[in-house]
């Protein structure tokens, strides 16, 4: 008979303890961050510095080693380098990152010797067109960075809010709309659609 009544006692006591735990949770702060409506402070301030958001390239310190391009498991980085045969200077002519492909694994930024490519805290880059997510970081050829003994680019302060990526994405979108506007008179339906997109 003793195990029988022990079972009753343990059941009732454990239910009692469980109820006490759940009731105490009614008096605790919910851990939900109510994005985007009710934020105590902007979400980018709440994220940690090691947050892996959209990639950004600081082309002024890129040495053109192409390690990021090679390590990328899904080939979302495309780099072109050119050499001036007379002056033997090397240029960066193309540095594209397809963010729609990127899986934010962080291999490229780990291997970069100058921290030219790194993750920002910028994450809400949704667009209506997938093509706009290919960010082109090089507009005109840039001379490659060379290591100097007096300065280490790794210690510089990174732009974690992603100003460059945001600018590039906005610029690309504007460009696209301009080219679309030129095509407008041909098709009235597409004109209507584009207007909606702009709005």
């Amino acid at each position, binding site marked *: 008979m003793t195990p029988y009544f022990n079972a*009753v006692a343990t059941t*009732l006591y454990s*239910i*009692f*303890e*469980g*109820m*006490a*735990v*759940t*009731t*105490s*949770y*009614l*008096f*605790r*702060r*919910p*851990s*939900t961050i*109510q994005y985007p409506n*009710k934020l105590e402070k902007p979400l980018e301030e709440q994220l940690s510095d090691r947050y892996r958001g959209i990639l950004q390239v600081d082309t002024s310190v890129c040495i053109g080693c192409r390690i990021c391009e090679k390590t990328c498991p899904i080939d979302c980085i495309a780099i072109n380098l050119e050499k001036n045969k007379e002056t033997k200077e090397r240029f960066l002519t193309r540095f594209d990152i397809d963010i729609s492909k990127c899986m934010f694994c962080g291999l490229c930024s780990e291997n970069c010797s100058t921290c030219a490519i790194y993750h920002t805290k910028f994450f809400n880059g949704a667009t209506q067109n997938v093509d706009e997510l290919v960010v082109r970081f090089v507009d005109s050829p840039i001379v490659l960075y060379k290591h100097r003994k007096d300065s280490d680019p790794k210690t510089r302060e990174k732009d974690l809010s992603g100003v460059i990526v945001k600018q590039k994405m906005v610029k690309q979108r504007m460009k696209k709309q301009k080219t679309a506007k030129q095509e407008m008179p041909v098709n009235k339906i597409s004109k209507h659609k584009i207007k909606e997109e702009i709005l």
Partner: protein
Amino acid sequence: MKENANLLFVFLFKTPIEGSGYSLAWYILFVFIIAGALLFFAANFAGITSFIERRIAARIQTRVGPNVVGPQGILQWVADGIKLLLKEDLIPDRADQFLFRVAPYFVFSGLFAAFVALPFGYGIVAADLNVGVYYIFAITSLVVVGIIMGGWSSNSKWALFGALRSAAQIISYEIPTALSLIPVIMLTGSLSTQDIIKAQGGLPWDWFVFHSPFTFVCFVVFFISALAEGNRIPFDLPEAESELVSGYNTEYSGFRFLVFPMAEWANLWVIAAMVSLTYLGGWQVPFVSIETLSGSLVLIFLSVAVFVIKTSIVVFIVMQLRWTLPRVRVDQMTQLCWTYLVPFCLVAIVGTMIWMLIFPWETRVALLLRLMMFGIGFAFCFFYVRRIRFNYFNDKTAYENLKKKSPWYPIWRLP
């Protein structure tokens, strides 16, 4: 209710009903008015409770819950209802067409008919049946017929398993539910819900819970088996999501599906009202005798408020149990019923009989014993609050170190 109908007729048309020749038509109209009012209450209670339960569940899991539709998400249940109403009424190809269509009506009418005998306050009951409690048990058994019909006619193994489990569960749990109310019926000498409440008092030590240790056991047994009859967690085997997709209502969609959860939420009121009227003193207002209560309209409204508050507290506990306990297995469910609840009930019935003989209700010793029982109950509640406090302060410093802010955020502070 007939007297109320007469009074309303006189109030509206200034003539006595006997001589007017419209008495039959008026009574039929009055029945429809009462039924409409009860349906309005049941449907709205089901909807609002579903919203409140989602919010409470969210807070227990440190979430916020639905808060987008309307201020603080208060209209979420309306949105859900409209969404389901606008959905296509699908019937599976191989399903038994007639039974499939009819099953939801059985489920809902079985539950809704229980509202007829449930009181809301002094004299406020649709029909004060002299077999009230018995009627409620009998009519809520209609639900299981609807569930089996729905499960069988769906032609789906999940639905069939859900229906079978439901049949096994509800039929076996009718026995402890009925047995655990026998002490109350013995103490009252009546099956009428109003008489049961009138036999108790307004103050806690005049409730049947604290009459003796045996009635307290019966109260616990009744609460557990009412949960099982209402298919609430931890006894929601008929619709165990992780095992049976959604149980007996797997194949339903649209309005026909809406009826099942709505009946379940409405059942929550039936469970809680039954618990509060049989053991927790119903609408009895403290320090007010029934004679003074019947005379004043304000006191009658106060009695309604008391009943609603008691029932809401029970509803809250049922909700919280849902988010505290895991689901029991089928064998555990039947074992609990036959080897624990039924023997306990039988012992408690005999015990109450002896107790009633030795300590009749009016004697001073009986009052002293009731006060003692109430003291034990109060100490239990006090210990419960202490445990809540302990659990809160146990995690407080760790939270403050981690988040640099106080974890204090009570339930009435809406996020």
